[in-house]
């Protein structure tokens, strides 16, 4: 990075601009003409580029023997360029002879999110054609089915109803940042559920270095700092589930967006529309897009921006002391914090805005003499709903409370969340009741 020394600062900036014309020959074989420039200085020919990228991918997969021979691995293909490249890399690895061959058992998954966006009508069919061409085991599941249905691997007759529920959730969120955050969390939920149903013990997703560094910075801005390692790590164990040890692996995490773009170009891989709520939105409407612009703009003059962010993020490791997981995102919850922390402050201000002046009066009364303890707005249901919201918020991480606060109605949340919440509540009650007997 640039030095802080004021007088030298300007010079440091200038040195970073390329002054010499680029070497046109490949830096590896020194024979072929270059095709790709990485980090504004490393020139590769097609052949050397391909073997370098493949090597990086294989090194990441091979690291510390993450996948066993014959193990079922859910390969998540969204249709994005990264994901079709991942599929191609895995397929190529499976074709190789002898000791270089990949030996796990892939199950390719496409989650059809078309109910949420305007996709070309034939997109699902095209994806199916692609999967058929590779000849691997595959599944195509509708997003809403994966969220709401118990038997989402079969055709569900209630799919229209589920689609409505899913659309409702997002139309009930007014803030674009939260909408996108919710989408990410629901995707993760769907993938985890499907992995279990398909008896996969490993999940592979296609996020590249670029995407992960943007996620890293967005996470910090969203208040998901403690969940960073879960969201960007190479191999993340889903400790939330005791029965299976479900590990998410990100084999593309050491590849840059540019490396993947050229991998797809050289292999003539077709990619598909993979939208989210920020697709073609302007950059100052959401935290995530603002972060993306910030990173991309920096990257223009400082080609090592992404890898610097990324390597810094890797050093952050999760606190092993955490034992509490968020009901919505399954991320780590900060529970052991001092009352004066930012989280408590926000909680209090949210509480006040949620309950209105009543809350303030109530808490003032409480301070005064604790005698007016029963003052409810009886008759209307708003109180119950407000109660449910507050109760659920108890079981959520800091960032997810924002989503639920913004959500107009809780009716369309996946049932597991509402049920688990009831369980938790029951457990708490029971604890209350028997606490006198415990010594």
């Amino acid at each position, binding site marked *: 990075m640039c030095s802080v020394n004021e007088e030298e600062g300007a010079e440091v900036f200038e040195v970073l601009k390329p002054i010499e014309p*680029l070497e*046109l020959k490949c830096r590896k074989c020194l024979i072929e003409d*270059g*095709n*790709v*420039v990485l980090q*504004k200085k490393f*020139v590769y020919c*097609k052949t050397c580029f391909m073997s370098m990228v493949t090597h990086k991918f294989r090194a990441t997969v091979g690291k510390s023997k993450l996948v066993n021979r014959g193990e079922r691995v859910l390969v998540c293909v969204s249709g*994005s*360029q990264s994901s079709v490249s991942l599929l191609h890399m895995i397929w190529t690895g499976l074709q190789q002879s002898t000791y270089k061959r990949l030996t796990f058992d892939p199950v390719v998954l496409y989650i059809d999110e078309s109910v949420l966006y305007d996709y*070309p009508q034939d997109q699902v069919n095209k994806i199916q054609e692609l999967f058929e061409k590779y000849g691997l085991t595959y599944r195509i599941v509708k997003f809403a089915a994966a969220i709401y249905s118990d038997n989402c691997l079969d055709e569900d007759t209630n799919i229209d109803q589920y689609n409505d529920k899913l659309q409702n959730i997002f139309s009930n969120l007014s803030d674009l940042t939260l909408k996108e955050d919710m989408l990410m969390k629901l995707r993760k939920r769907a993938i985890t559920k499907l992995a279990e149903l398909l008896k996969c013990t490993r999940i592979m997703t296609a996020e590249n270095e*670029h*995407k992960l560094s*943007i996620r890293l910075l967005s996470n910090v801005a969203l208040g998901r700092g403690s969940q960073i390692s879960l969201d960007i790590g190479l191999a993340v164990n889903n400790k939330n589930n005791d029965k299976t040890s479900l590990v998410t692996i990100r084999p593309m995490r050491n590849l840059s*967006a*540019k490396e*993947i*773009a*050229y991998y*797809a*170009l*050289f292999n003539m891989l077709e*990619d598909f*529309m*993979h*939208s*989210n709520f*920020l*697709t*073609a939105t*302007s950059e100052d409407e959401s935290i995530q897009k603002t972060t*993306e*612009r910030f990173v*991309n*703009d920096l*990257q*223009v003059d400082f080609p090592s921006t992404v890898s610097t962010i990324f390597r810094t993020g890797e050093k952050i490791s999760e606190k092993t002391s955490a034992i509490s997981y968020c009901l919505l995102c399954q991320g780590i919850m900060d529970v052991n914090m001092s009352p004066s922390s930012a989280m408590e402050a926000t909680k209090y201000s949210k509480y006040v805005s949620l309950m209105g002046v009543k809350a303030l009066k109530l808490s003032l009364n409480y301070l005064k003499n604790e005698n007016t303890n029963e003052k409810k707005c009886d008759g209307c249901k708003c109180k119950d709903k407000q109660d449910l919201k507050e109760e659920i918020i108890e079981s959520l991480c800091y960032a997810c409370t924002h989503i639920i606060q913004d959500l107009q109605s809780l009716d369309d949340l996946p049932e597991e969340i509402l049920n688990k919440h009831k369980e938790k509540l029951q457990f708490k009650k029971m604890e209350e009741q028997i606490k006198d007997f415990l010594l």
Partner: protein
Amino acid sequence: MDKVLNITTEFTSGLQLLFGNVKKHKLVLPEAEKPWTLGLLLFWIKDNILVDKDKWYLFLKGNTVRPGIIVAVNDQDWELLGDLNYQIKNNDNITFISTLHGG
């Protein structure tokens, strides 16, 4: 007749959204006084084939492509070809790849 240029442009990885969901475009660049460069082509694309005109800023920034968009001519990085100053040749295949997330 010889003075016009026949080229192909491709917009992938979400960029096609700005071009009526069509990835591949065969273009005929009209005869011009100055030689056709990539720099000129960008604005010609903006004026002539961009469908979602209001969202041109998702394609261009200043006089070049928006950061995060990769440009290749016949599978070769435009950084090796002089970026905006590259002189377009007949039958060139020019690819624009978005690395922005979700397009």
